[in-house]
């Protein structure tokens, strides 16, 4: 289990229901290493204000890590974590290796729209 404050996806059923029930989903698939922890930290910060996005983590070596690892968009990836952004169940963007707050918010703005009026960021 990843030691983060994010909701974890640990089963295939959770993965599919998350994508079905949320228009915009960001999943960070990683371990507890130095490239992954900063991304979890960014997601935890953004959860409060990006209420139109479901933020989840997934264990790279866990029983359902293959759902992200084997995506065609992640085929060339060789750096943890694999972070995938889903819009209406389809992959909108995928990144490999560490990402900064700015890099993540740029993608969120482009793929999922900016923070709604009234939300603080």
């Amino acid at each position, binding site marked *: 289990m990843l*030691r983060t404050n994010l909701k974890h996806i640990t089963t295939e059923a959770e993965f599919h229901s998350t994508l079905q029930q949320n228009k915009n989903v960001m999943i960070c698939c990683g*371990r*507890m*290493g*130095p*490239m*992954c*922890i*900063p991304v*979890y*930290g*960014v997601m935890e*910060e953004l959860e409060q204000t990006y209420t139109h996005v479901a933020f989840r983590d997934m264990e790279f070596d866990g029983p359902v890590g293959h759902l992200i690892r084997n995506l065609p968009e992640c*085929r*060339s*990836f*060789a*750096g*943890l974590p694999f972070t995938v952004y889903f819009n209406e169940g389809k992959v909108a963007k995928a*990144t*490999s*290796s*560490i990402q*900064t*707050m*700015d890099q993540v918010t740029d993608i969120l703005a482009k793929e999922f729209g900016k923070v709604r009026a009234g939300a603080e960021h």
Partner: protein
Amino acid sequence: MNRFGFDVIVLGGGPAGLTAGIYCARAKMKTLILTDGTPGGQMILTHEIANYPGVESTSGYELSNIMKNQAKKFGATIKSNVKITRLDLQGEIKSVEVAGKDLYTAGAVILSPGGKSRSLEVWGETEFKGKGISYCATCDGDFFQNKEIIVVGGGNSALEEAVSLTQYAARVTIVHQFDNFQGFQHAIDEVKANPKIDFVMESKIIEFIGDESLKRVRIQHQVTQEITERAVDGVFILIGYEPNTESLKGMLELNQWNEIVTKENLETSIPGVFAAGDAIHKRYRQITTAVADGTVAALGAIEHLRVAKTVSVV
């Protein structure tokens, strides 16, 4: 602009900054710690810490969490992943503007911006990050089973990680800009004795080439200027850290290596501004020395405030 008053503002959330926050908050100073990333600084880059006194073994992440929670327990406010848009260190009251909308003021500031990984600043480095280029052997080594790997660097990190990567790679080539290594002798002896490691010395990578992922690099010999191309699956860039002081240039005294110059009590060239950790001029950079710096800087800041009898007002 929203305005918030504190007694001490700590810029940086690594071991130096968190320690300074602990000491200041425990001394009943209204304390704010601002960090542009996740609290922990370079500590979270370390999978295992085995030489922190009193702790036989822990991860950098665990130790960061303990320090962060300890600072919070004493009443420090921690804001992470912030973007500082303006910094004014002059005068009795210093101010830090965040995201162009929040202004934090204090009678003392402790700078602990730490270090950042050096990059090669070569074309393709950003494009192939995570697609062949890595900065963490422990994280990404297993993506390169039986592959060709290059390690760039000549210090302890590069040498130790090169040895570590031989458990995965078919071959590891160390590319280093000088004709000798800068690491400890035992690390040098270990790489030289490893049959899976070879060396390209006095050379630099000048370009990364590939399509979906990295495929080749161009290497230039620094003396002959000869350029060669080499097929590669992964490159691990381990060329050390530099002080994260770019934003402080022109504000206070930095030395020729852009390290913050401090007095014995870690006060900088600006009264009421102290500095701690990897960004200051010092010989040894360890978690323990950062913690010591944080302590000294905090005590200096506390004494400064008591002498100045400065109170931050909103």
